[in-house]
């Protein structure tokens, strides 16, 4: 993919043209097209390292300006009908004004965005979390808990001499996860990190999965990318 190099501060030909018109302090409805065209082309010449994609747009505009300039130099053709005496600059001016409107509006939007960014929303509760957002004093009462415990206590079970059970570890190993991920990647072009983690049955498995990913990155078996903050993390085979 081509690297976008911004031409000075100008995003595009309209922006540059506007800059020149404003700098020259001329009426947008009566642009001295010869002057502005010269300045515009000088500017293009000044810019040495141009991104090709952008450059073509700037060059198209240069051609448009030159065309308008030549039309204005020619003597006006004999009028065929009343409506045909359009100013050759008209189309360009119309486009420039339209662009200007949106450019101005974008600053209005910017202000609104800045203001609203300071407001926060609550994370949405999933259906099964709704219960937890209530102080369920009437649903899960302490009395219920207490009664349950009393009933159990009267069972008078021996609590001494307890034999401790073994603690079973989740037996997913990093090696297994690595082959699991590689298997996936041999079938699919890419994997989402989120999906891998969501598939895990336990916290430990999630950790093991993460370690497996780190190991695969280290061994240069996979390539991990994220296009922007909080976007999905994509895992690809190298």
């Amino acid at each position, binding site marked *: 993919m081509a690297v976008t190099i911004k031409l000075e501060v100008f995003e595009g030909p309209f922006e540059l043209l506007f800059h020149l018109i404003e700098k020259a302090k001329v009426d947008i409805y009566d642009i001295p097209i010869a002057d502005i065209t010269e300045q515009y082309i000088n500017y293009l010449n000044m810019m040495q390292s141009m991104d090709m994609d952008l450059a073509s747009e700037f060059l198209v505009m240069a051609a448009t300006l030159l065309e308008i300039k030549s039309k204005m130099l020619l003597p006006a053709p004999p009028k065929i009908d009343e409506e045909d005496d359009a100013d050759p600059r008209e189309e360009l001016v119309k486009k420039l004004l339209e662009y200007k409107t949106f450019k101005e509006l974008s*600053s209005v939007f910017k202000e609104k965005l800045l203001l609203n960014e300071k*407001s926060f929303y609550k994370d949405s509760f999933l259906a099964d979390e709704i219960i937890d957002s209530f102080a369920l004093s009437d649903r899960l009462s302490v009395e219920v808990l207490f009664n349950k415990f009393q009933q159990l206590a009267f069972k008078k079970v021996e609590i001494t001499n307890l034999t401790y059970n073994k603690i079973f570890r989740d037996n997913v190993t990093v090696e297994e996860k690595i082959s699991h991920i590689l298997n996936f990647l041999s079938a699919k072009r890419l994997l989402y990190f989120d999906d891998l983690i969501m598939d895990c049955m336990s916290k430990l498995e999630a950790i093991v999965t993460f370690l497996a990913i780190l190991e695969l990155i280290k061994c240069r078996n996979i390539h991990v990318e994220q296009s*922007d903050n909080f976007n999905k993390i994509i895992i690809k085979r190298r």
Partner: protein
Amino acid sequence: MDIKSIKAAVECILFVSGDPVSLKDLAGVLDIDQGTLKKIINQLMDDFDDETRGIKIIEINGSYQMCSKSEFYEFVEKLFKPKAKGGLSQASLETLSIIAYKQPITKSSIDSIRGVKSDACITRLVEKEIIKEIGRMDTPGRPILYGTTDNFLRLFGLKNIGDLPTLKDFD
């Protein structure tokens, strides 16, 4: 149910939901007609204007949502250091403002207004769920038509698309 309880119930529901809840759903669950409920919610929104309140209710496309008041941002920031939302570039804002006013609009129409390619901006705006594909144009190539989302309204504090600043002597 009296008005007081209705207000309380709406506050409760909006708090629990987090997400916007439509007037229709609220009216249905509270068993009141939408017109009456709308009036009560408007009153409730005024109640929240009080200076002892740190939260507010906003309206988006006929739905309501609870959010914090921006005046207290400094405290929230100090306490929770919220993740930067990563604003929008000038180019994205330009693209967005064109889509907002001209929707439904194709990429090539946007490009022609801006005078530059808008592919990257559009991709970013779609990812951020600020704009979305809202259809296809019935012309060769069936180009995608873009429009704004409810998230756009929320981000920019607009009730609905009619709430956009009006375009003056233009078009």
